[in-house]
């Protein structure tokens, strides 16, 4: 098994297949870089910052340091962005605010020149959101945290869709499905299957070779994308995304490896259909079937670690299983796939087309 593992590692890292992996793992980083530099991310950030101010203000949170600003008889104090007073409207960061929304008190430093009120865009202090003390807590940071969580959710959804749901699926599609097909097409299987090597060791060695070859580059790619996003969300976010990314390649490769043994020459198409219909479409159907998908458990793990409060009716779609149960479910999926693949490897004929 050790030798098969080593050979598989060499095939992925040494052969032409490494370019495929490099492409798969650098694309999402480039995509993230593109989104950040095109301003997409800073736009989101600015929107969220403004939202924090309004929400805090709506709760009547007035930090002691803030100054009161009156306009048309109402209190106006804002933080972050630019406030401009006109005769009958308030423009905040160039956006028109209704009177009601503007009737708020915020925190920050204000500068008044030539009849215009400018607000120093000092950002509020960030704090980690935690479910225990977060949303129900009142105080200066309550809304900040709430919105912060919103932002983290957006980023974690982005990273989740990018890595476990797409890149990991794609990597497994390329590597997991081709474990056997590659040896059949390359007509090299004969060398391996005419050795005194138990077939389950062949399966296990190949499988571990793929996982190990992919794990480190994948981790680096996820980390790079996260850093480009400003290392948002701290350990909980990156930790959960890394964990489910690795869980995704572990689970998908096992399933696709089984596909490879079931239908060696059509495995890629079968895996693609499975990926689209099961992991993308069915995984969102709240009718038990989605609990047969890998994505469902991956989502459960992420929402669990990030301690997102998911409403009951939505949790059936997003993934509402506990972390231990989700891990167990994935373990079962992986074990069954590898077991079946090993049985097939030992029992099935794999015909290599003759030279002639």
């Amino acid at each position, binding site marked *: 098994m050790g030798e098969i593992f080593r050979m598989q590692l060499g095939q992925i890292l*040494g052969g032409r297949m490494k370019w495929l992996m490099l492409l798969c793992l650098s694309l999402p980083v480039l995509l993230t870089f593109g989104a950040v530099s095109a301003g997409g991310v800073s736009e989101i950030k600015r929107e969220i910052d403004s939202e924090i101010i309004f929400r805090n203000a709506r709760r009547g949170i007035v930090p002691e340091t803030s100054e009161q600003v009156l306009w048309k008889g109402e209190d106006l104090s804002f933080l972050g962005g630019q406030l401009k007073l006109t005769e009958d409207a308030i423009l905040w960061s160039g956006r028109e605010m209704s009177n009601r929304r503007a009737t708020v008190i915020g925190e920050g430093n204000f500068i008044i020149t030539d009849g215009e009120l400018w607000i120093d865009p000092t950002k509020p202090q960030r704090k980690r959101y935690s479910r225990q003390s977060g949303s129900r807590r009142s105080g200066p940071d309550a809304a900040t945290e709430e919105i912060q969580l919103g932002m983290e959710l957006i980023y974690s959804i982005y990273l989740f869709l990018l890595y476990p749901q797409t890149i990991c699926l794609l990597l497994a599609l390329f590597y997991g499905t081709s474990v056997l097909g590659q040896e059949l097409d390359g007509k090299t299987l004969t060398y391996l299957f*005419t050795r005194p*090597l138990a077939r389950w060791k062949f399966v296990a060695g190949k499988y571990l070779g793929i996982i190990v070859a992919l794990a480190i580059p994948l981790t680096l790619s996820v980390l790079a994308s996260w850093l480009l996003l400003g290392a948002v969300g701290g350990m909980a976010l990156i930790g959960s995304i890394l964990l489910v990314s690795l869980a995704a390649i572990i689970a998908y490769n096992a399933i696709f490896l089984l596909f490879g043994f079931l239908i060696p020459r059509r495995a890629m198409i079968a895996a693609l259909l499975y990926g689209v219909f099961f992991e993308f479409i069915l995984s969102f159907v709240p009718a038990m079937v989605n609990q047969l998908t890998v994505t469902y458990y991956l989502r459960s793990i992420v929402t669990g670690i990030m301690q997102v409060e998911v409403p009951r009716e939505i949790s059936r779609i997003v993934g509402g299983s506990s972390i231990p149960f989700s891990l167990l479910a994935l373990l079962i999926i992986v074990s069954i796939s590898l077991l079946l693949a090993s049985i097939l490897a030992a029992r099935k004929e*794999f015909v290599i087309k003759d*030279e002639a």
Partner: protein
Amino acid sequence: MGELLEARNLTKLYGVIIGVNDVNLDLQPGVIGLLGPNGAGKSTFLKLVTGQLRPTEGQVSVLGQNPWSNVQLFNRIGLCPEQDSFYDNMSALEFVTSLARLSGMGQEAQDRAEQALARVSATEFMHRSIGEYSKGMRQRTKIAQAIVHDPDFLILDEPLTGTDPICRREIMDLVTELGAEGKSILVASHVLHEVQAMTDQFVLIFGGRILAAGKVQEIRGLMNEFPHRISLRCSDPKKLAGALIRDLPIDGVEIDQEREEVMVLTKDPGEFYAGLSQVVLATGLSVRELTSADDKLEAVFNYLMAAS
């Protein structure tokens, strides 16, 4: 030592296509040639013998064991497969060492790989990647991986394909040497004289059937019983055919007016060829083309097939 190989009603179908058809065969240890034209079922037979395929019907046993789903048997079998395929980014040494490890070797794997490669004169190039090798180098590498674990029974599927005369000679010598060391070797080939140089024990396979098995003398005798086919092309095949029938030892004639061809069947090709030029000259015709279909093993096998 018991039986090397035993097949009973061994049949392999691929869907409706017959790969091997009701083969009964007993082989004693030794060097044996498996002779048959391309597509005769050699490779299918060897895949059954090496447990890569499961018989549709009947059974085969190798060294007293059923090869299907029996990976332990591969401690004692070495296979040099027909296909010219490798992990091209590996060197011969890495390749053979890896396969030696799969044969259960530990520390000694690399030493044994070097020995095996030396035995096929591959030491010189064994550090280069296989992708850069010539056909001959690749054949040598394939044989090295088949002998690295010192198997009792070596199976070589078309080991001489694409090799130059020197390499051919060396491989033939190696087979003879290994045979002399007491190894059993089954060499599959579609070229009679190649196998003849290595052994006088033959199994003839064609159309998925074993046509004959035994010493080469017996088989040659069998072949001699069947007429040779010789084709001649000229402008007036009827006239030529008439002259040939009158003056030469001929067992049959087919005339193809359209292709301007006469196909002659003769059991005495020596005398036929000796007298041919005289006869042709006498007719005043000019023969454009003369081919002996018997150069092709397939033709011989077709005769044998019809006879069996």
